[in-house]
């Protein structure tokens, strides 16, 4: 599952993309706590193991810095930057 942030400003050259694997997440919330921009939140839903995986609650804030990917102990989340020309094409 992946969520992308919309291009809020016209001069923005890229946007952040966060990819979350809901099923391997254990809901430790490291990514939510240590996202430098506070863009993530935990879902109220459960995954198959009974944990609350995160989701991109404020997509406009995400810049794809991949801090969530560095913190994830279960390799279930990562972020990257997508060039906007690439999206338009």
């Amino acid at each position, binding site marked *: *599952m*992946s*969520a*992308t942030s919309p291009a809020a400003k016209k001069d923005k050259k890229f946007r952040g*993309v966060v*990819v979350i*694997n809901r*099923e*391997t997440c*254990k*809901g*430790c*919330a*490291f990514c939510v*706590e*240590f996202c430098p921009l506070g863009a993530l939140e935990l879902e109220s839903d459960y995954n198959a*193991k009974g*944990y609350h995986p995160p989701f991109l609650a404020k997509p406009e804030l995400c810049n794809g810095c*991949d*801090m969530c*990917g*560095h*913190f*994830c*102990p*279960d*390799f*279930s989340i*990562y972020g*990257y930057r*997508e060039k906007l020309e690439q999206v338009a094409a």
Partner: protein
Amino acid sequence: MSEPVKPNPTSKYLRTERLPSIWCPGCGIGTTVNCFTRALDGSGFDLDKVAIVSGIGCTGRVAGYLNLDSFHTTHGRAIPFATGLQMANPDLKVVVYSGDGDLSAIGGNHLIHAARRNVDMLVVCVNNFTYGMTGGQVTPTTFQTAVASTTPYGAYEETFNLPRLVDSCGGVYVARWTSYHVKQLAKSMGEALNKKGFRFIEILSPCPTLYLRRNKLGEGLDEMKFYKEKSVIKNGASTTETDLDYRKEIVVGTFVNRERPTNVEAMEARMSEVLGAKYVPYESPGKKPAWA
């Protein structure tokens, strides 16, 4: 919702079919493994030339999750195994990835002697202050007054300061980070992978199920916030200033970065000096089989 364009940067280095891992929610070991994959990613090594050796314990499971030549050895004997591996094939980058109980208690003797002899290996020690897999017994790194299953009234013995121990034994690269310092840790691991000699990185990491719950310190996330609040980066600090105390300031950073001949280099220098032309240096067989 669209399909991801880029794959997960860590998945190349992992046995993804074995995931999710056995580690508890809130455990920091996975974060350290994540940093290690990023250090490998940045170093650009041939992965056939990297071997990882683990002992027993929660951190001992790391070898099973990394998609490298990995060895899961007996309790405390990861360093002797890695020494043999490195001596038989000096081309290998040997990494020992294990816990504090495995490396400093059961394998404590091997740790100090590998550091003394300056065997060419990187030792990553994930310190969670307890024996996680066997039920939270006291380790040499458990703080005084902290409760463990074998010290229900609080531990009372003096603790090891691992960076200081390895520094005094002669390690060439000694660092301490916590699982909160992900970027610094990945950079430090990359630096250490590119060095020769005995490199040692201690990583403080939360154990939510045993250490934190027994001491009523909250979840793994609370411990990560504590690391964020209480740690002070002092690169190049003397290791005598890096003692840890229960719930006190944590000094992190790269403390030692020096050069010293490894045991193979020292042996070759001495043998050439004594035997002269009669001495034939050992050549690594590399990937070639012996009969080729």
